[in-house]
């Protein structure tokens, strides 16, 4: 537990570069579209209101997101199944 509580504090200091707002927004939208009864919609609306300006242009994230290649990891790493 001590290790985890220090991670929460240290992680943003060690890795300050992140764009997880877009990933979170993308996840909330996907979850809401798959099951609108979960209650995700309320948080989605809250997030969109809070970060309205930042969410106007997610083209950078979408570009990288779309470029990510799915691979067959067993073959890719040369491992046997």
């Amino acid at each position, binding site marked *: 537990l001590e290790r985890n509580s220090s991670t929460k504090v240290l992680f*943003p200091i060690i890795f300050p570069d992140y764009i997880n*707002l877009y*990933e979170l927004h993308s996840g909330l939208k996907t979850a809401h579209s798959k099951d609108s009864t979960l209650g995700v919609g309320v948080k989605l609306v809250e997030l969109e209101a809070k970060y309205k300006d930042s969410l106007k242009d997610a083209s950078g994230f979408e570009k990288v997101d779309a470029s990510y290649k799915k691979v067959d990891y067993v073959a890719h*790493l040369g491992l046997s199944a």
Partner: protein
Amino acid sequence: MLERYLRLWDNKKSVPVQFAANTLYVMERNGMNDALDEYSHILIDILKNKSEFLHSEGLAISLWALAQSGSLNSDVWTNVFEKNLSDKKFGHELSYIDEVRLTPNQFESASNSYFSEGSWSDFGKKLFYQGIIPYYLPRLH
């Protein structure tokens, strides 16, 4: 590899919660559906037991992974995400990187926190980079 790692932890509650978030994310990002089917319940249990220790990055990527894979149910949503999302801040900055040493595979960011792909072993490069660098965009000159 994941199975061997998890076997090292007699008590699964001792596994760092960020490990669970990262692993779910990597598996979903790379389409490792068999591994997700087999291990997601263990990783989700870790998230539920230790959700209070997740930082914003962990919350964002694990939510993204579970939403994409269709594994997000009301229990996980309520106990992991709904109660923890409100007090977190989420970033939106893109980090631009510059090449160093005139090579196409070594970069540095303004904060110098980027771990250069060029310094990784061939196995590490294959495992983490796949020839692209997620979330880092080359600076346009």
